[in-house]
């Protein structure tokens, strides 16, 4: 029973990792952009939420109402004004620019918020739990996991049922031909980044409720996100969820064996899957 509980906790944690990963997957899938600053944007969202909570008196969950639209607009502008200029046949410029952004964001956060650890408190909800036949499951982890499911289902609908979603997929296939269809790449890329940042902000708020954070924790979140994307297979959103869950379970089981093994177990499972299935578990059939 204890192991089953660990397994379940790991699965629910995987929902958060999937949220880290979805944004990365969107950006890489649509515009072949690898965003090194992704983890730092997650932490930036956490600090934005902290400000909203401290200054406007919102609860952390209610702060999403402010943080999500803010990050959405930030994402669109960032893409249109800066990142679109780095995209081209060479993959190095976007890597360098987002690496620079990562350093800038970390240092700005350090400057404004100091290196002190912060945490958002959701009050009673954080310790509330529901029973599942002998297992006690936290309400917050359930909310996080359900949010991940909703986000992925929503994106899936957007991708397969709307005109803008078709434009996303067409651009992902062949940017040049998509332009011939009247698709304005610069705008579509802005949209993709805006969506990615909206997901990032939800992940950032949930992260801040779950654990304490400081300006330097971004890169580790980036790594978890990358691992989840690669495990799941590039280009598949549900695969990303599977990747997140596998990573979460591996970490939880590792921690159960020995607390020092938590992070290492995640990395080992990631490496193992890379060896066995180099393209991930659910790669998109066409590349």
């Amino acid at each position, binding site marked *: 029973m204890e192991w089953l509980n660990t397994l379940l906790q790991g699965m629910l944690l995987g929902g958060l990792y999937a949220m880290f990963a979805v944004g990365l997957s969107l950006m890489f899938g649509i515009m072949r952009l690898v965003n090194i600053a992704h983890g730092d944007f997650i932490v930036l969202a956490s600090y934005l939420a902290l400000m909203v909570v401290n200054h406007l008196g919102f609860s952390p969950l209610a702060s999403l109402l402010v943080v999500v639209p803010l990050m959405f607009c930030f994402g669109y502008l960032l893409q249109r004004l800066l990142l679109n200029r780095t995209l081209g046949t060479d993959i190095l410029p976007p890597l360098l620019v987002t690496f620079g952004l990562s350093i800038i964001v970390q240092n700005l956060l350090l400057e404004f918020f100091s290196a002190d650890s912060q945490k958002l408190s959701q009050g009673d909800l954080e310790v509330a739990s529901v029973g599942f036949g002998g297992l006690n499951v936290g309400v917050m982890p359930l909310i996080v996991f359900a949010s991940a499911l909703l986000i992925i289902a929503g994106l899936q609908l957007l991708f397969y049922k709307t*005109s803008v979603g078709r434009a996303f997929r067409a651009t992902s296939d062949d940017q040049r*031909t998509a332009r011939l*269809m*009247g698709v304005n790449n610069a705008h579509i890329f802005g949209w993709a980044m805006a969506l990615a940042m909206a997901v990032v902000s939800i992940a950032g708020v949930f992260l801040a409720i779950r654990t304490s954070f400081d300006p330097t924790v971004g890169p580790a979140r980036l790594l978890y996100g990358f691992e989840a994307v690669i495990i799941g297979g590039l280009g598949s959103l549900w695969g990303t969820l599977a990747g997140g869950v596998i990573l979460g379970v591996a970490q939880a089981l590792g921690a159960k064996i020995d607390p020092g093994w938590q992070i290492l177990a995640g990395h080992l499972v990631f490496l193992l899957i890379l060896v066995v299935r180099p393209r991930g578990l659910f790669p998109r059939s*066409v590349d």
Partner: protein
Amino acid sequence: MSNQKSLLSIEKLCAGYGDFQALFDISLTLEQGETVAIIGSNGAGKSTFLRSLAGLIKNQPGAVTFKGQAIGDLAANQVLERGIALVPEGRKLFPSLSVEENLLIGAYSKRPGPWTLARIYQLFPVLEKLRKRPGTALSGGQQQMVAIGRGLMANPHLLLCDEISLGLAPTTIKDIYAALPSIKADGTTVILVEQDINQALSVCDRFYCFQEGRVSLTGRPGDADKAQIKAAYFGI
């Protein structure tokens, strides 16, 4: 040359890729409703010409005038919004989109006009049964039909067709060219780029022959004799 009433007028268009110049001072006019064929051997600059028109290669703004407006320096998506659609060489269907989605993305710009999904299926009935399939799971001829349908879904005033018979069986080519009269019936102006001279001359109102990036001959199919075309085509 720049007749105000012409749908399209191209004046001294020069284009190329980087240091390589493929087109030299091409001038050409096109009237509403005409079908014009561009013939020429490999490397004559035919595809470069269409790409320049479609906005995939940027030109001097004044080099291309469409409906009285200079569009030479517009990007491909802006050119499409003005009403010029390109059916690209090699079809270039989107592999992760179904046949129907490939057609629907053609209408992304929401230009109003006669072409709808239903009319495309009327024009190419075989596509309706295949509409759920991935675009690239079709035969070459069927893929070409999707590519043409996708271009028409933008309701263009001017449809550019790049080598639509390339690599297809003669009977398939006949099926595809059979769609041309219905396309023209709506007043759509067509530029056909072809290597197959006979095919091109049998359907066009006028033709231009390109040779090494220059217009080597132009006229009506009935007026030019075989020897003249051969000389303009091969440069011998």
